[in-house]
């Protein structure tokens, strides 16, 4: 095992110091009253094209992309490359839905999707259900960010004694710092640190994609020795691949943190432009995913990985490939990029959970909560959510966090009929959307448990005769849509209304 030297540790810690400074400086950047919820959670709703690009980039390209996807490619092969067409498709979905949500939010002062639902359907029950779904589905997502940070620390601390304790203390310190600056700076701190994170990640992927193939003698070397399932998707999984693309793309912009990023944008025009550019970011993701294959052609990295139990090798692929193919100083820079690549999204996610909890759950129960206690509860609960996720990671194995994230996607997609179709179709009924949402959640959870034989969650594909393997989120969403639309049609027919009576534009 290699012990990392000062040449790596100095750039790592130096850049981490810069990260802290940026996080706290956020408070003074474009000064606003940070005791106002719009200022704290949405940076005053005035982020332009470039900043929204970075912020949404931080939302979307997270430890999921740096850790979970390369880990999946490493273990299962090309199936996990679904992440690439998924992000390409997701921004198309965003372009037809998000500008309208932004326009409505600016006018009506919405901060969360749940605010919109409550106003649109006049249903507290539906709004609370949407809020709970959002909070629950983000918990494993934050945990996954922490697993990503852990993977960096495991590689950096390998070879020293008590590495496990040191790793947990380091994570705790990082989270205390993160909690402190999100408390004081709100979304501004997250946006500034997102820029640093993105610059470091881009430097890393560009360097890796040049250096690694050159040092191993071209991509051909890596692809020559792998199993066929690493070259293309096996026939039995083609429908699984396509439905993973569809389901993940539909789910992405339903996550509270993605909507939070969208709503911080200054104008509908700027939002469209930055969304259109975001697929370019996916190129970095594709390079990261390829690392799951390239690593097989780098013997020292494979040797390093062999010291770890098979189940945890996947998450270490990217950091160990960097460690064994890059100079030490560069390793420090790249590893910090991945480390804060987990930290920044965790901050944004916890903020959006806190908004949902305060605005859409607590305020429903206690409607006369004052604006000043609203912001205080939001700030405190965003801190609590971070530490809940940290506790989660400390108590359960890392691989489990990745599996639970699969479940998160299946849950969050169930708010689609209310949020996406609610934006355009006037006559959807809350009485049909509520059972639709519940059936989606329960059938999705059941199918995940069933397909994994009620054991550890490793697969999110469900085999259905004729159709083949399908992503469970899509199957459960189909049930949900059938109930939501079918129920609305029946009820509207009773009342003599047409379903597709869209709003006059």
């Amino acid at each position, binding site marked *: 095992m290699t012990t990392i030297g000062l040449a790596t540790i100095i750039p790592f810690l130096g850049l981490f110091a810069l990260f802290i400074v940026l996080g706290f400086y956020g408070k003074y950047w474009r000064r606003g009253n940070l005791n106002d919820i719009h200022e704290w959670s949405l940076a005053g709703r005035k982020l332009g094209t470039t900043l929204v690009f970075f912020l949404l980039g931080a939302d979307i390209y997270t430890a999921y992309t740096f850790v979970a996807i390369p880990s999946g490619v490493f273990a299962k092969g*090309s199936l996990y*490359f679904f992440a*690439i*067409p*998924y*992000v*390409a*498709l997701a*921004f*198309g979905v965003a*372009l*037809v839905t998000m*500008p*309208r949500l932004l*326009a*409505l939010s*600016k*006018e009506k002062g919405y901060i969360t999707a749940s605010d919109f639902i409550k106003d649109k359907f006049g249903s507290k029950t539906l709004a609370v259900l949407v809020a709970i779904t959002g909070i629950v589905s983000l918990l494993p997502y934050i945990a996954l960010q922490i697993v990503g940070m852990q993977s960096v620390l495991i590689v950096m601390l390998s070879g020293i004694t008590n590495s496990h304790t040191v790793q947990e203390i380091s994570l705790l310190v990082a989270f205390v710092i993160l909690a402190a600056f999100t408390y004081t700076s709100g979304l501004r701190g997250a946006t500034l640190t997102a820029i640093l994170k993105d610059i470091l990640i881009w430097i890393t992927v560009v360097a890796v994609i040049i250096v690694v*193939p050159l040092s191993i003698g*071209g*991509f*051909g*070397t*890596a*692809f*020559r020795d792998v199993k066929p399932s690493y*070259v*293309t*998707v096996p026939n039995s999984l*083609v429908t699984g*691949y*396509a439905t993973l*693309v*569809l389901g993940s*793309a539909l789910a992405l912009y339903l996550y509270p943190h993605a909507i939070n990023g969208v709503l911080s944008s200054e104008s*509908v*025009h700027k939002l*469209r*432009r930055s*969304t*259109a*550019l*975001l*697929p*370019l970011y*996916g*190129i970095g993701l*594709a390079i990261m995913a*390829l690392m799951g294959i390239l690593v097989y052609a780098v013997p020292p990295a494979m040797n390093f990985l062999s010291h770890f139990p098979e189940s945890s090798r996947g998450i270490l692929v990217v950091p160990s490939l960097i460690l064994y193919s890059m100079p030490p100083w560069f390793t420090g820079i790249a590893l910090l990029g991945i480390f804060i690549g987990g930290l920044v999204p965790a901050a944004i996610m916890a903020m959006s959970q806190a908004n949902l909890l305060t605005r859409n759950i607590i305020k429903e129960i206690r409607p006369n909560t004052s604006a000043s206690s609203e912001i205080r509860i939001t700030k405190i609960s965003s801190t609590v959510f971070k530490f809940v996720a940290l506790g989660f990671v400390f108590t359960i194995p890392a691989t489990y966090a990745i599996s639970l994230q699969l479940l998160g996607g299946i849950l969050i997609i169930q708010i689609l009929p209310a949020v996406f179709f609610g934006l355009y179709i006037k006559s959807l009924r809350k009485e049909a959307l509520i059972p639709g949402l519940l059936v989606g959640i329960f059938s999705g959870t059941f199918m995940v448990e069933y397909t994994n034989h009620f054991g550890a969650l490793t697969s999110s594909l469900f085999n259905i005769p004729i159709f083949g393997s399908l992503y469970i989120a899509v199957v459960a969403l189909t049930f949900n849509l059938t109930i939501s639309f079918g129920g609305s049609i029946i009820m509207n027919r009773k009342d003599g209304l047409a379903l597709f009576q869209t*709003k006059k*534009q």
Partner: protein
Amino acid sequence: MKTKLRYVILALLILIPSIINLLTPLYNRRLPEFFGMPFFYWFQTVWLALCSGFYLGFARLMNGGKNKEEETVNR
């Protein structure tokens, strides 16, 4: 009639990239390779940039009708 054409173009700018992203059998092949990388991998990576092109076209066309945009929010 002109607005109808505009809607058709807008729809195509989103639908063409979306359909190709979902048509896995279209790109699920090894050949032709690019510097030893199977088609499956390089096509999907390059396709990201082309998707951005389609989407920018969509954004431009939508943003062109500036005043219309503000009108749609009058509820």
